[in-house]
């Protein structure tokens, strides 16, 4: 990343998670950029929306299926 992060650096960091989990000094530089750039704030809001929506739209459903379990055991036992 450049010493003064660009919009591209910020968008990349928001998408790969380093905006939240990266080293503090990098995050501080990115946050300064975010404060001053409304397009980056909009992009970050869209990524946050995707994450939030995915938590309800893509939640895995565990269903106990005894028939499937029986078939599995039949295949796995010698």
């Amino acid at each position, binding site marked *: 990343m450049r010493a003064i992060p660009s*919009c591209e650096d910020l968008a990349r960091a928001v998408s790969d998670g380093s905006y939240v989990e990266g080293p503090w000094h990098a995050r501080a530089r990115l946050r300064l950029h975010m404060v001053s750039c409304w397009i980056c704030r909009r992009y970050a809001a869209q990524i946050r929306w995707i994450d939030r929506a995915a938590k309800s739209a893509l939640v895995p459903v565990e269903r106990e299926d005894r028939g499937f379990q029986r078939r599995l*055991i039949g295949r796995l036992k010698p």
Partner: protein
Amino acid sequence: MDDTLRIRELKERRPGAVEALVEEFASPLLAAARSWGMSLPDAEETVQDALVDFLAALDRFEGRSTLKTFLFGVLFNKCSERRRKAARELATEDVEGAFDARFGLFGIWNCIPKGPEDEAVNGELKDWLSRCAEALTTDQRAAFQMKVVEGKETEEICKILGVTPTNLGVLLFRARNRLRECLEKKWMRR
């Protein structure tokens, strides 16, 4: 049950060991395969193959991860293999290309990203997102699913996918941007 004990019981083919394994893991494995983009029949077959491979590979289990993580790693490899064979994996270059094209000189935006921001997650938008997620590759989908939807720790995800934390970041970057690009197209047509 303790992993070491369970492994010993499975290796020795103790009565009930396979049944206990299936009872504990069949449902979560099936749910994971489905959430990584497989149809129900494909997911069932993949879980079967994964468990067969897992039992055959028991001697190679060194205890560097938990049995559950190891098992999900085997499942992930099986899912990737199956989707590759079915030629359903799409190239990732288009994500990078579309992302790069958004920026001009000095990395400044040259077009404003559009799409949902503050909207409530309603049925229509949920449906869009689910359809867009179908276009992700298995590794992108699995990384996004485990990190964002299930909130798993980076270390565990890396063990399951067999990648470094940096590679995981790349997968998340591609997954989120592929989803964003797809949602933007739907948003503009609305």
